């Protein structure tokens, strides 16, 4: 789980213009804290699908699964099993 989380943090740091020192909690909203927008979310979906070779069902594209590090990590863990 921790490995998945770090991988997502690295992706966000490299692709979302986050300052190096930005800190955010596992349950902080990525959209409300200004880290990512709707286009960024679509790019993130693509990245996750490719990186973990998973297909993300459309009904899983929800804030619960995609708006926080914890949500994303849980979702990948569930789908990659």
């Amino acid at each position, binding site marked *: 789980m921790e490995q998945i989380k770090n991988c997502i943090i690295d992706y966000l740091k*490299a692709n*979302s*213009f*986050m*300052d*190096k020192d930005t800190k955010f909690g596992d349950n902080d909203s990525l*959209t*409300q804290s*200004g*880290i*990512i*927008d*709707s*286009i*960024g*979310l*679509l*790019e993130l979906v*693509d990245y996750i699908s490719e990186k973990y070779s998973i297909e993300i069902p*459309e*009904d899983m*594209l*929800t*804030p619960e699964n995609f708006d926080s590090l914890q949500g994303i990590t849980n979702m990948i863990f569930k789908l990659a099993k």
Partner: protein
Amino acid sequence: MSKLVCKKCVLDSDIPGIEINTETGLCHFCETYTPLLSQEKSEYLSKIDELFKNCSGKGNYSIIYALSGGKDSSYTLYKLKKEYPFLNVLAVQFDNGFISENAIQNAKKMCKVTGCDYFQLTIEKDILYDTFRKAAESHDAFPNFAKYRASDICNICITIIKQKLIEQAIIQKAPFIVFAFTAGQSPNPIINLSLNFIKWSRNLFEKQLQKIGVDDKDELFLIKSEIIENMGENALSILHPLCLWEYSEDKVLRTLLEIGWELPDIKDSNSTNCTLNSFACYNHLEKYGFHPYAFDTAGLVRSGEMSREEGFEKINKELSKQLIEEASNKLKLKPNNFKKSVTTI
């Protein structure tokens, strides 16, 4: 530390969030850049080809097309209809209160040439001006992700267009929405929109509007909730074919001029259709210290569609003072209201 400029593109270390590796001399975007291979591009084009050929729209149109009347959207419409003459296209031009008369004429002409229906989306000017004014006066209201892709004003405008085109596609039961984004502007050539995602992106935009002090209770900018509820099982995709085609500004202009498109009469190095763009760039530079087209231009340079010299020329070109003044007058804002003045960029 003195400013470092990426050796490959046009981004530099003075832009917040941009890091230049001192060993390689590259920004972190160039370091991790993996271009779409020509084979991948062909695969995407084949997919689009298949989608169009198998499209069995239940409504009057197969495509809702975002037509600004500028060169890219005019060219993409022309090429699209040339390759797929059987597609029924509704071209939507958004009158944001700042489109040039020349852009309106060009859009109508392109529809005539290609045999597409033309629809002008209008919203009351005062409401639009008030919203653009609030976007100009806002600071850090948009995620960094959005801020680097476009100015705050352009982000508002393009998101209204996206919201209203999705709304139109649902109403018309059209399966595709097409935008003429270049490789530097669009992340993916094909985006499948699920109902959940449409609802979510609508809510995100609603919150962004609230953040700048706009309450869109009449859903003038947002997709109407009632319409989303009626989407049913209809599949909807956004397509960006231009980012898969070979792009050359010269070729695009040559083709367009041959078919009667007329060169714009506005002097803006980044837009051939919008008279608000210079002000929007000026405002962004004043607030954040970098050009809103820097990232887009860097993308074109990185992918080889523009030379580095052309890229620097584009983002360093002086903005039109006349356009800035005209737009700020319309918005009842004075350029010197801003914290510092920029005469050249």
